[in-house]
């Protein structure tokens, strides 16, 4: 049997199975959304595929009953780990009134749910990074011992808001984790045209913070790095910049055609390292998963997704005139 890596990290067998289940659920919801999109039932999808390992690994290193996240549009794995449900996500996909993210006002992928401490997101990239810093500052002022984790793509790490926010957190030694999910592309632009540094984490030193680059296909490696960052933050050692390197397995979104700018071979090559597959293999190697259990798990997830889809599809839209509500406090 292969080396058991998760015990050393303090992760129980149940925990890693839950991690895997969350990753798989995210993947399967995402796949369903593409089917619904191609069937003309939902106008838009933007995917987590290829980044579930990083998202779930990171979420599990946080206190999911206390900490805050300011995720970005690909973080379906992370918000599932933070308590959002398949039904919530499907309601958002179908833009229905009951969608807890926005009541159908925003596109899918624009996460937000106060009860689960998922800070509301918009489309302009990287704005959320500053909000995470503000929440961490407020948390400290109120004496709550919380951590805020925020995510963004490698392209977005070039926005001014990343720099200003990282610097602010560095100066004030705030418990913020800046996690860059490097998936090698920003729409069509490869990382070589986005950044001139070798690693995004090379930027950490410019903010006097801890930086680390890890394999984003490996949820345990991500867990370990984020865990270290959480502990530093709790000890008052300030923020961290973690880069998780993986690959965007789908086109940028349902409006994109990635054949224009990358080869099929490159995509196929990346699929071999897909974290959902490699983590399943690990769990099998350490004896926590077998084909039987995997089949059961897939069945369970399919049921959840079917139910969520049916519910969301037949749920009502918000009334047209309700568009006038909640501009200001009412």
């Amino acid at each position, binding site marked *: 049997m292969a080396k058991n890596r998760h015990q050393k990290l303090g992760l129980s067998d149940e925990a890693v199975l839950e991690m895997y289940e969350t990753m798989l659920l995210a993947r399967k919801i995402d796949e369903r959304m593409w089917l619904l999109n191609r069937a003309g039932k939902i*106008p*838009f999808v933007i995917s987590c595929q290829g980044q579930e390992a990083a998202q779930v690994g990171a979420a599990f290193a946080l206190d999911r009953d206390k900490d805050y996240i300011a995720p970005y549009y690909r973080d379906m794995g992370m918000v599932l780990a933070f308590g959002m449900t398949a039904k919530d996500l499907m309601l958002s996909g179908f*833009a*229905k*009134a009951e969608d807890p993210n*926005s*009541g*159908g*006002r*925003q*596109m899918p992928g*624009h996460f937000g749910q106060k009860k689960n401490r998922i800070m509301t997101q*918009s*489309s*302009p*990239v990287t704005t959320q990074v500053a909000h995470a810093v503000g929440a961490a500052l407020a948390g400290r002022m109120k004496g709550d011992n919380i951590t805020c984790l925020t995510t963004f793509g490698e*392209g*977005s790490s*070039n*926005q*001014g*808001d990343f720099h200003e926010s990282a610097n602010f957190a560095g100066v004030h030694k705030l418990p913020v984790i800046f996690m860059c999910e490097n998936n090698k592309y*920003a*729409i*069509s*632009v490869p990382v070589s*045209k*986005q*950044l001139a540094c070798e690693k995004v984490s090379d930027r950490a030193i410019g903010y006097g913070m801890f930086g680390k680059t890890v394999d984003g296909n490996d949820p345990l490696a991500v867990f370990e790095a984020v865990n270290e960052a959480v502990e530093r933050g709790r000890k008052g050692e300030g923020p961290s910049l973690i880069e998780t390197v993986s690959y965007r397995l789908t086109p940028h979104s349902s*409006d*994109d055609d990635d054949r*224009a*700018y990358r080869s099929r071979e490159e995509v196929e090559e990346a699929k071999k390292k897909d974290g959902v597959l490699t983590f399943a293999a690990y769990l099998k190697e350490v004896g926590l998963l077998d084909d039987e259990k995997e089949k059961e798990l897939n069945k369970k997830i399919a049921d959840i997704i079917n139910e969520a889809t049916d519910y969301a599809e037949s749920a009502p*839209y*918000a*009334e*047209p*005139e*309700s*568009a*006038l509500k909640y*501009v200001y406090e009412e």
Partner: protein
Amino acid sequence: MAVMSYIDAVTLALKEEMARDENVFVLGEDVGVRGGVFRATAGLIEEYGEHRVIDTPLTESAIAGVGIGAALYGMRPVVEMQFADFILPAVNQIISEAAKIRYRSNNDWSVPMTIRAPYGGGVHGALYHSQSIEAIFSNVPGLKVVMPSTPYDVKGLLKASIRDNDPVLFLEHKRAYRLIKGEVPEDDYTLPIGKADTKRDGDDVTVITYGLAVHFALQAAEKLEREGISTHILDLRTVYPLDQKAIIEAASKTGKVLLVTEDNKEGSIIGEVSAIIAENCLFDLDAPIRRLAGPDIPAMPYSPPMEKFFMINPEKIEHAIRELAEF
């Protein structure tokens, strides 16, 4: 004359200007290999190479700022903002820098730069891929804001913008991209920035608008003609600085004015149009100046019923014209 779509007129104008003047170059997110997320720059990188069609990092402020620097050096950059909604990180570079450089340097330096951005709704784009952002830039002396409605105007005005020696914000309605088709001459023509255009002659009610709503107004006018209501339609084309003379003439002509915008009502550019009329030809009016606009909510929602509720359409315009005619 070829019939082409609104977006093809954009591409054609870019191609012709790049061929005409080697100082013209294009920069923005995904404009190169991808040819733009809407494909407005399709084919340019193949024709002119990656030194003149530059895929930039995801940084709107730097895109605008680098464009300004290149323009100061003597180039004619054509900058693309992927969506008009995402121009906001670049507001400081555009308003504090591009627009003020000629003035602050007492005419020593100038910024011959064009910023293209797709705006507007009705494309399931939700809050951040549907906005009209022209009002933010329509109080900025030094800048010009052009918003064409037809492929013919697109080609003529985009070429004029690129040749202009001052910064021009060129806003393209993304729903019009493939929906609106029209005749476009093959020859090299430009149209004057700052001049409105009568898109239809009429006597009973004047509609003043711009962008996609021009087409909605034309549809409404056609229908109303059968009822015997004659509509005059003025297309602003440039929303800053406004063509005061054309506005005053068009308003005076019928004495009944409907102003239409897809933007939120309060603070939109049609408020300024109304003020120009109220200042200059108040006594020619036979009815209050009516405004038809989006509601004052942050932007149009994603869910189809709410999006439809927000959007201007021919029926809403028709209704408003009829009310004015009957006033």
